[in-house]
């Protein structure tokens, strides 16, 4: 008889029915019969002999039985037996499941070992869909980048949080082993079948409610519609968001008579006036950041460059305020008054009629005079409102467009409608509708329109029998809802961990990460993006949508029922050794099938695609995005008579604003150590939420940064919170950041909170949803101190020419310093005196970068990109406190302005200084290794561990490094990072951190090894590492090397393709991802490359510290250009002086610097 050898398990199991026969063919009949009998007897799976719970003794017995069962042992039989024994022995190696090694005897199609595979997909950052391109190695996603084919990623750019989602995929704190049901105060594991049966029976009668996050994909909308039909008359769906755009939506309806939410296109505007935080407010996303960068960028040639202007009215210094040209402080309650006052002025000038409600309200409030806005220096007109109106009207008269924006976490609620009405009115009379403001058709997306509040009220009354929550965490973002959730008879929570809401549930259903599951989104009207899995499910979880369908099927609904098939053992399930839950095997329609049906059906129809279904589907999967032209006719503005415009009375006491954390958003990211360790773009604080207070208030109350205060909001228990005295905050205004202080986010969040931290959950301070714009609150010093971990040692430049800025109108009067990267000899422009006569030449490529401080919004996307690309470890809060952050790129944020010289930080500011700190300006300066030609770090290394290559990159050779750290001392930019501990093993910093003594004693006494190693054994985080980059060990120096693994591929490709790779095909991770294109990477030896032309075009390029130290960096900075009237100092000619010292810095020179 001919023996058929099956090559792998998948081949064997293609036809499960035939598998026994094939297996019989594989081995001799006698042996395999004996083995299979034993397998049957002991209930082993047909794939693996390993089984949980077998003790070594049992396995020994099995071996003995096997031995007896054999009819006789010949040579081949002996070998087979030995092999089988080896398998059993492996299975006996303790409880831990052994790793499975699968030979690449047959490569999956399209896979080449060692080459990355990219998948286009879609992820969500706080509900905002982002088209992504996921880089996978050997089936593991290792990096998330923007999808270049997606229309909203600006050619492959990505935002901070979406990139960090990679870490959430591998988060060991996710639920790993199936669903849970409640058992007393705790949970017990149940099987999927039991879960479906239990939930299905609960769903058979009574009211059924579904609470989700925002949904906009066609498949999701169809699913909700199907569910509604499946439970006729007793199904409710509501959307809950931490920061819903309810106020905006309401204003839109009142102003235009149609529902929907606008989206914004600042790239089409010349001028932007923002009331609130456009960039980091929690209600906008990547597309808005990209557009903002285009607005800010200096356009045109050096001689007549122009730049969009950003005027911001805001109470506290925000990311947008930091990037603005003109920043106007307004009390939080007076934003609406300011907006309508501006509307009044603009309406006057463009001949529009101010709505009568506004006229009345303005009259009642006393008009703009009540605002007490600080005049703009040297401006004509000096009043900020008059100035803004003048600019807006000028733009309109010139046929250009502007953008008026209001929003942010604190502008969500009903009390902000007046403000949103004003921006709607302004955009309408300035002709921005349809150009910079795009309205979404009603019903496109399911967002938080207040149904959640109603639903929770019904729950509280006990009127909801079964509540399913998916993709929302109301117990955290809305603590007041907890009591109501407890009234629900059956609470089913679909979550990836037992979070605050899941903790209340009767059933917890583990869900997949976005990178593991299917889905889709309609990011903006007509812009569809498709989500596909890039890795098989890591653990025993199933897609939330599939769970919903399975519940419906179990409840008897027919909509999702399919004919049950036999389970297909894919090679994935074989390899992962997990009995993957298969929808079709349970008679449930698979979620993939649902998505595919929607796309090949409705979406294909909408796109008018002629291709057949299969081709359309494959093309959609490959591109990840689909644009269907949608005709959006601008609606006609007509303010409803029901619109109420009112302005709150000026606050008498201190007011508290609740803002979205710029890194944590709504708190969903709190267990993400990358984001925990990211410095806040404005305060540069990591790992903690805090209360930002105005310098004037701090001075009056005798509070300094790092003091812990007791914060009392009316009717709520006081909470202790550390304080940061924040430059630029309006007096009488406090800002607390939401998204922190979760109780059940996971171990990263727990460890940092337990280690002397404060769990500051601002959501607890107010029951009302959406959040009000401002609250009455008081603070009192507790006397305690708490060191907030900041990555920036000092916030002021002290008169040093570091992050240079200049005024747009003034910059043309001074000649540009010199062309960057041109090394003149002594006496020439750009020539520095050197004792070394020669310069080395770069025969081929010479890599360089420009950093445009004008467009940098400080969002840290570059930092996360670098973390992922270069396996940069997380070090933890204690290490950040001791200035040991490991980020290879950082964004220095300096406050500039005409403040007093003795303002060296917010510690014990003087009264006069406090006043002057209110109107600071900000420069964001990304600093990575400057790849100096004359690198000070290189000659001091005794071990040849750092040197220059012939492509201009300063190399760091980790395995040569002894760790003397002189290179770091000698680096004037301090971009070198040292592995003080074995950081690569840490997840949230040194475990059990605190004093080293405590840590060491704990480690030694508990495990004999470091506990971080012990933890590592159970962590999948190492799967995330980029295999192209060495993981650095303790005691060695590391630093940015312009992603040398990327630039080296160019050399290889040039060899194999025999051509010079054109500019732009290789980019560093930071430059590739930067949403505002502030970082441009390229070849300096190519005069036509973008990096060279960018630096030359604007004439604002300079190299950091080059004049002082002759380091000759390969990085050129483009000055921050402020599009505002020059101040008196700047007007007097100091600005843009050849020595690079702007006026306000020259003024400080007298004080010694």
């Amino acid at each position, binding site marked *: 008889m001919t023996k058929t050898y099956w090559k792998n398990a998948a081949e064997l199991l293609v036809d499960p029915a035939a598998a026994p026969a094939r297996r019989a063919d594989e081995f001799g009949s006698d042996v395999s019969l004996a083995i299979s009998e034993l397998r049957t007897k002991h209930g082993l799976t047909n794939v693996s002999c390993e089984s949980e719970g077998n003790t070594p003794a049992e396995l020994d017995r099995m071996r003995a039985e096997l031995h007896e069962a054999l009819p006789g042992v010949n040579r081949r039989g002996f070998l087979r037996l030995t092999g089988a024994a080896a398998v059993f022995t492996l299975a006996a190696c303790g409880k831990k499941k052994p790793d499975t090694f699968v030979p690449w005897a047959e490569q999956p199609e399209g896979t080449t070992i060692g080459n990355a595979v990219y998948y286009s997909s879609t992820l969500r950052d706080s509900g905002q869909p982002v088209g992504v391109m996921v880089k996978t190695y050997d089936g593991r996603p290792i990096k998330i980048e923007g999808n270049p084919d997606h229309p909203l990623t600006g050619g492959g750019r990505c935002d901070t949080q979406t990139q960090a989602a990679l870490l959430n995929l591998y988060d060991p704190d996710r639920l790993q082993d199936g669903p849970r049901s409640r058992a007393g105060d705790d949970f017990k594991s149940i099987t999927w079948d039991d879960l479906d049966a239990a939930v299905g029976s609960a769903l058979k009668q009574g009211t059924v409610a579904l609470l989700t996050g925002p949904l906009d994909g066609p498949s999701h909308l169809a699913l909700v519609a199907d569910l509604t039909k499946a439970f006729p008359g007793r199904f409710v769906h509501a959307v809950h968001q931490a920061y819903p755009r309810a106020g905006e939506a309401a204003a839109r309806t009142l102003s235009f008579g149609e529902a929907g939410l606008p989206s914004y296109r600042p790239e089409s505007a010349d001028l932007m006036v923002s009331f609130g935080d456009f960039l980091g407010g929690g209600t906008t996303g990547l597309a808005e950041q990209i557009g903002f960068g285009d607005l800010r960028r200096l356009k045109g040639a050096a001689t007549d460059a122009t730049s969009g202007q950003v005027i911001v009215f805001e109470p506290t210094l925000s990311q947008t305020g930091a990037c603005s040209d003109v920043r106007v402080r307004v009390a939080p309650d007076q934003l609406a008054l300011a907006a309508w006052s501006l509307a009044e002025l603009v309406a006057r000038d463009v001949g529009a009629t101010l709505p009568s409600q506004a006229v009345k309200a303005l009259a009642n409030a006393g008009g703009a005079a009540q605002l007490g806005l600080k005049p703009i220096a040297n401006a004509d007109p000096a009043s900020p409102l008059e100035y803004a109106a003048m600019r807006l009207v000028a733009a309109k008269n010139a046929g250009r467009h502007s953008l008026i924006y209001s929003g942010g976490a604190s502008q969500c609620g009903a009390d902000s409608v007046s403000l949103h009405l004003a921006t709607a009115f302004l955009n309408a009379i300035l002709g921005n509708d349809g150009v910079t403001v795009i309205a979404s058709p009603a019903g496109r997306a399911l967002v938080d329109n207040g149904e959640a509040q109603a639903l929770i009220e019904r729950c509280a009354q006990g009127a909801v029998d079964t509540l399913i929550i998916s993709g929302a965490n109301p117990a955290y973002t809305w603590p007041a809802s907890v009591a109501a959730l407890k009234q629900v008879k059956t609470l089913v929570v679909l979550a990836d961990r037992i979070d605050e809401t899941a903790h209340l549930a009767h059933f917890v259903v583990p869900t997949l990460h976005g990178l593991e599951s299917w889905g889709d989104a309609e990011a903006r009207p007509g812009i569809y993006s498709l989500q596909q899995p890039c890795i098989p499910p890591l653990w025993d979880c199933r897609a939330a949508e599939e769970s919903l369908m399975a519940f419906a099927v179990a409840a008897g609904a027919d909509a999702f029922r399919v004919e049950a098939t036999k389970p297909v053992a894919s090679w994935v399930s074989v390899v992962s050794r997990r009995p993957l839950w298969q929808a079709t095997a349970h008679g449930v329609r698979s979620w993939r099938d649902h998505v595919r049906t929607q796309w090949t059906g409705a979406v294909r129809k909408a796109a008018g695609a002629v291709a057949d279904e299969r081709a359309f589907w494959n093309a959609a999967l490959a591109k990840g995005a689909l644009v269907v032209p949608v005709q959006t006719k601008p609606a006609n503005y007509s303010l409803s008579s029901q619109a109420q415009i009112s302005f709150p009375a000026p606050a008498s006491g201190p007011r508290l604003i609740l803002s979205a954390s710029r890194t944590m958003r709504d708190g969903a990211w709190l267990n993400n150590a990358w984001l925990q360790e990211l410095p806040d773009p404005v305060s540069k604080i990591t790992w903690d939420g805090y209360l930002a207070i105005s310098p004037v208030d701090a001075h009056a109350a005798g509070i300094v940064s790092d003091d812990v205060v007791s914060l009392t909001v009316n009717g709520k228990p006081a909470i202790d919170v550390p304080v940061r005295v924040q430059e630029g905050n309006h007096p009488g205004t406090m800002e607390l950041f939401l998204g922190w202080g979760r109780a059940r986010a996971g171990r990263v969040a727990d460890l940092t909170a337990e280690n002397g931290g404060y769990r500051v959950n601002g959501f607890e301070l107010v029951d009302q949803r959406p959040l009000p714009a401002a609250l009455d609150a008081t603070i009192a010093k507790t006397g305690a101190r708490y060191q907030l971990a900041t990555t920036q040692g000092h916030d002021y430049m002290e008169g040093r020419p570091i992050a240079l800025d200049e005024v747009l109108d003034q910059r043309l009067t001074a000649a540009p310093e010199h062309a960057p990267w041109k090394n003149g000899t002594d006496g020439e422009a750009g020539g520095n005196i050197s004792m070394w006569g020669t310069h080395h030449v770069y025969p081929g490529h010479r890599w360089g970068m420009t950093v445009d401080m004008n467009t940098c919004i400080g969002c840290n996307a570059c930092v996360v990109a670098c973390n992922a690309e270069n396996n940069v470890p997380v070090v933890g809060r204690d290490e950040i406190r001791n200035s040991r952050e490991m980020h290879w790129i950082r964004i220095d944020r300096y406050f500039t302005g005409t403040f007093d010289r003795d303002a060296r930080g917010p510690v014990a500011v003087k009264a006069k200084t406090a006043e002057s700190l209110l109107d600071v300006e900000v420069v964001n300066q990304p600093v990575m290794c400057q790849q*100096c030609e*004359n*690198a000070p770090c*290189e000659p001091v290394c005794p071990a040849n561990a750092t*040197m220059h290559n*012939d492509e201009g990159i300063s190399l760091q050779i980790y395995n040569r490094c002894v760790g003397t750290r002189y290179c770091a001392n000698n680096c004037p930019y301090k971009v070198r990072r040292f592995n003080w501990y074995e950081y690569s093993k840490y997840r949230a910093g040194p475990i059990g951190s605190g004093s080293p003594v405590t840590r060491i004693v704990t480690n030694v006494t508990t495990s004999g090894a470091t506990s971080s190693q012990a933890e590592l054994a159970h962590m999948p985080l190492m799967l995330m590492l980029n295999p192209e980059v060495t993981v650095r060990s303790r005691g060695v120096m590391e630093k940015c090397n312009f992603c040398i693994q990327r630039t080296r591929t160019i050399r290889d490709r040039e060899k194999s393709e025999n051509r010079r790779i054109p500019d732009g095909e290789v980019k560093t991770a930071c430059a590739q991802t930067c949403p505002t294109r502030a970082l441009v990477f390229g070849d300096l030896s190519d005069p036509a490359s973008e990096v060279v032309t960018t630096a030359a075009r604007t004439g604002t390029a300079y190299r950091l510290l080059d004049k002082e130290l002759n380091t000759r960096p390969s990085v050129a900075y483009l000055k921050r250009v402020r599009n505002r009237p020059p101040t008196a100092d700047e007007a007097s000619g100091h600005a843009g002086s050849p020595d690079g010292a702007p006026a306000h810095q020259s003024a400080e020179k007298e004080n010694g610097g």
Partner: protein
Amino acid sequence: MVDPINAPPTTSPTPEVPYVAGFWKDPQAFKIAASAARDAGHTGIQAYLPYPVHGIEPILGLERSFIGRPVFAVSILFFIIAYHMQYHQQVVNFPMIYGGKPFHTWQLFVVVTLETGLLLGALVNLLLCFHTCRLVPNPAFKPMHPRLSDDTFCLALPITASSDAQSLVAWFRRLGSDEVEVDERAGAASARDEHREVHHA
């Protein structure tokens, strides 16, 4: 005839040939004796001092030590070797760019050159000192006289045909020795019972 004084010294605690030794506590008396011995035409005079006595070398006819020149030569040699080592590494073997500096930077090679030359000079100096003084670890060392390293000076004259032990003892006595000792190897020749005769001054 080879001048025994300048002959290579030995590791033996006592002179190589049979001798008669006179001991003095007073360095001045010792010096006078040494002069006298030299003037009397004794050859092979061996002098032992607990501490250096000024002016003894010319009296005993000792030349200036030769070990300066080799040390100087070795230092110069290692200046060259050390410089070459650096040149080879930085220019020939690993011509790497460090901070944009030229490969050959003599300014940066000075320190290692100097330090290496001086160190090797010092080591050779030590070895030469050990060699010339015949210094080797000697745990079983028995001094010729227990106070020879304390406060006693010694002048040892070889017993020759022209000056036998008897006459040397007498001669030492005349020069005021505190003690006189006759080498036991001279026993047969001197036919004295006691191998050591102590004469108190």
